[in-house]
């Protein structure tokens, strides 16, 4: 009943909130022993024709080297076998060590299994997974919510939050399990006092780092999903000209849904009295020679419905102040003189961009 997990957290927050004026957070020392590195697989194929990739690495071990780096596993043999015996071999990327790629598209209803041979002879397999039927995205809706807060100076301040909601079809036979990923791209106009020439950039960003949006449609009535919230973000200068949402709706297996739900639970764990004990998230990967060996990660087989939706001040019916201004005495930002310095920035207008 994952529908309720985040909500349970909130009322517990409220319990804490009653005593919030005394609450404080500080760092403490716990002697945590280093674990052994474990093999990690991050793999995904879908029914859309594109370059799919499978990454192999070792987990990062706290207290050993740089905790944030997962050492890649290079030189492995990686492939996917379908239910009728076809084998799709993946080649290691020359640009990203430990990442294996292939242009392919899966077929809905077909079974796929990952097969990996590591340089040390270790074999890794995934359980066979059937590619679920695609459920098409049908529409998008935006809601604006004004939120007031007390800033660090002690003054009441207001921000506007944009809630992104989608509509989708729901398979009436096999109730789907969904996972959503969202990215964005926005138009950025350089401007600064006494500017002689300025250019426009198109900046891409990932909107859902460390966020999971999941749904078990067995809990939903009807053949249509209406106004499902998949994202909330600040309505700021990124929307001053034109913003494009890239929304991918993955129809995934029940096992994958459970896997991501468990990860969501772990990410929500705050160690409080009302948290369940954190557990080991088991994926669908195993070593056939030693089934007790824990292989981290998941090999995902999903069908995807992809849509782009544009959003701008006209749609939102709201004036949004651009970040860059030619007016002196207003804050000036380096990217207002050269927008190409922003990560994910392109000067070429995408061919799908609305003029």
């Amino acid at each position, binding site marked *: 009943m994952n529908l309720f997990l985040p909500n349970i957290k909130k009322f517990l927050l409220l319990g804490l909130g009653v*005593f919030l004026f005394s609450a404080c*957070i500080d760092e403490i020392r716990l002697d945590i022993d280093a674990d052994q590195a474990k093999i990690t697989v991050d793999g995904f194929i879908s029914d859309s024709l594109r370059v799919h990739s499978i990454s192999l690495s070792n*987990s990062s071990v706290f207290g050993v080297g740089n905790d944030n780096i997962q050492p890649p596993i290079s030189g492995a043999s990686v492939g996917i076998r379908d239910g009728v015996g076809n084998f799709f071999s993946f080649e290691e990327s020359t640009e990203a060590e430990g990442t294996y790629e292939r242009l392919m598209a899966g077929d809905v209803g077909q079974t796929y299994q990952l097969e990996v041979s590591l340089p040390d002879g270790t074999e890794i397999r995934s359980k066979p997974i059937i590619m679920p039927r695609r459920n098409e995205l049908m529409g998008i809706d935006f809601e604006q919510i004004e939120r007031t807060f007390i800033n660090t100076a002690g003054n009441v301040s207001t921000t506007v939050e944009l809630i992104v909601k989608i509509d989708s079809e729901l398979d009436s036979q096999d109730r789907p399990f969904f996972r959503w990923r969202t990215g964005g791209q926005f138009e950025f106009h350089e401007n600064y006092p006494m500017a002689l020439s300025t250019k426009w950039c198109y900046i891409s960003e990932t909107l859902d780092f460390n966020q999971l949006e999941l749904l078990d449609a067995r809990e939903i009535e009807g053949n249509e999903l209406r106004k499902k919230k998949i994202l909330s973000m600040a309505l700021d200068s990124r929307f001053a000209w034109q913003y494009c949402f890239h929304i991918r709706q993955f129809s995934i297996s029940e096992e994958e849904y459970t896997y991501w739900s468990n990860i969501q639970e772990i990410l929500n764990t705050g160690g409080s009295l009302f948290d369940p004990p954190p557990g080991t998230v088991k994926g669908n990967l195993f070593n056939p020679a030693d089934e007790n060996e824990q292989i981290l990660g998941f090999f995902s087989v999903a069908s995807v419905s992809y849509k782009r939706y544009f959003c701008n001040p006209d749609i939102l019916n709201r004036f949004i102040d651009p970040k860059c201004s030619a007016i002196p005495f207003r804050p000036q930002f380096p990217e207002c003189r050269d927008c190409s310095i922003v990560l994910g920035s392109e000067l070429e207008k995408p061919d799908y961009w609305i003029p």
Partner: protein
Amino acid sequence: MGLYFPLLHSQTQDSVQYQTFGQEESATAEEYKLSGTVINANTGQGLTGVAIAVEAISKGSFSKSTGRYNLKLPPGKHFIKVSLFGYQKRYFEIKLYADGNLPIVMVPVEFEMDEVVIEDESASSQVKREIGGLERMSVLQMERKARLLGETDVLRSLQSLSGVSSVGEGASGFNVRGGNADENLILQDGALIYNPTHALGFYSLFHPDLLSEFQLYKGGVPAKYGGRLSSVLDVKLREGDKEKFNTKGGLGIASSRLSLEGPIKKGKSSFLIGARASYLDWILQSSRNIDLKKSEAFFYDITAKIDAQLTPSTFAGFSLFTSYDDFQFAEEVKLDYETYTGRAYVRQLIGKKNSLNLDASVGRYVSSLFDVQGNTQSVFETKIDYLRFRLNDLISFTENHSFTFGIEGDYSQVSPGTLNPLNSESQILPKELPIEKGLTLSAYAEEKFAIGDWLNVSLGIRYSQFRNFGPGRVYLYEEELPKSSFSVRDSLIFGEGEEIASYSALEPRISLKLNMGENKAIKMGYHRSYQFISQISNTASAAPIAIWQLSNYHIEPNFADNYSIGYFQEFLDGKIESSVEAFYRDIHRLIEYKDFANLLLNESVETELLVGQGRSYGIEFYFNKKSGKHQFEGNYTYSRTQRQVEENAEQGGINDGAWYPSNFDKPHILNFNYFYQINPRNNISVNFTYSTGRPTTAPVSSFRNSNILNIPVYSDRNGFRIPDYHRLDFAYTTSFRSKRIKRWKSSWTFTVYNLYGRRNAYSVFFQQRPSQRVTAFRIAVLGTVFPAITYNFSF
């Protein structure tokens, strides 16, 4: 019968009563026996632990559990003082020239701490009690314990006792000698309470002004109690004043309370009614967080009780209780939980030695979680209803020999969960899990007797038969495979009233008290207990919406064997008492949970459970200087509580089948209380508590998957501990009497909770910053000094 009640209204409580037994001329023996029964004037029940003292010749005795007492005195005139904490003292001047029978009626008093230096008398004497592991605490003693926001609180006071702990600040419930919170039988005036907390665990449900005392059986549990493994908390409401009307109340910064009492028919019947309500919203409003400003937190409770003496030998009454908690977080989620109980009793005295008691109670606990946003607006509700009755007969053959037997029935109906959309825009599918029904029928008997002056024996036996009955569906699973939706091989359908599962339980209860003179005793106890209903929760402290699960086809009742032995000694005529007590508990068929168990709205919840065993053991040291202006009380407990879930074909294990600490394993717990009665109107109390930090599970590595960075990989369960907990509290009370209104009495209590502002960890979480090691952070909820002021009044 006639011996008791002609005295009832003729005895003036403050004056001396005179009585002569036999003729002086005929007195030839060196000693004569004075005996009788001490009873409560309101209920007719025998009173235990009443001190009958002849101070001039340093002779005395205490009444037994039946109220009987026996005292050998030389012939002549004696001045007798009769006292029991919480009752008006009685004085008799007797002339004893033959064996005599002196019935004594004690009238309960309302405690008025501004009047006297209260001395904790024999009623709470550990040496005199017949069983080990029994704790008693009056309201007055509770007022000396730690008080959050100035509130006198049963559960917080309970945690100052040896062997009692909680998972942490704000935990819902308490743990006794290593038991789970749901393993405590909690009774208020005989009615069963499923959730004893308000405000998500920060307050207890019990109105302090309406209580007389509570008793906690943590060691030897009498045969009349059953159904829980760990302990019995019996919270007793007092009876309303049968003579005059009284009002009592208090105004605090978080809640206020009011109670009224008085006679319905003077001397024969009384009422008592009280209510409490919180106003925590102002605290939320003072927050800098806008979501909290839009939130609500509120609770109230109402208690009402009527007691009546129908005939000289018949007593009856009933009580009603309701409580309600409501929380809403911003405009997103809302939680309610409610408790309702009703209880009626009839007590019939049959002759001088027999009393027949009939109790019946009904109750309901319901919790609702509302999702109030978006297209998932819905309400999830769980509910438990019960109906209980108990008929018991107590026969007192002699002062030292009594026999109790009785029968008990408990019908429970559990609704494990319903989910309903809140409006037409919600896309939530309604869902309802089948209602579960269980009936427990029990019979019990207990005999108490003495062998000479050196040994008191209590032998009890309790037999219970539990039935889970339909309608219902039971899934059958492939043998030798873990229970899951993939291993279902068949299902059984049961009709209305058809038996789904049945279990019987035989529970022996033995207590021995070896008297080593007046002031020393060794007590030993063993009891086995079964539990047919458990709270299904895999969190360290169960949330209010956690479901209660009856034993059924797949879930067998768990049971425990409890052993204890202790040495008790008093010094300085009982002014100082001390004890050391060791215990061991073996828990069988302990329920544990799979990782990421899905426990809500799960029709086959057995697929999420693991079965293991538990053990807890420890030693408790206790010291109490309980009289005088300066009073000290302290205890230290060393204990361990551990779990083991072994891996087999039907289930995976936890921590490779090794023993691991439970969530509330706190090896060292120290409590200390100092009370100073400055003068009759002013007093100070100071409390200190220390405990080892509770176990937790920490991450040891991490990995990235898709857009999720740093997914933690955790250590063995409960492989680490959060920092140790300690806290110092202070309270000062000053009392006043109104010169204009004679009956008006009031007091101000200033309390400081967490005097030195210790940031005790409520929770510990882990974060990994870029290019840095994982770091542990603690959230301290009550992490600063908490001053409060409370105004109390009565008239």
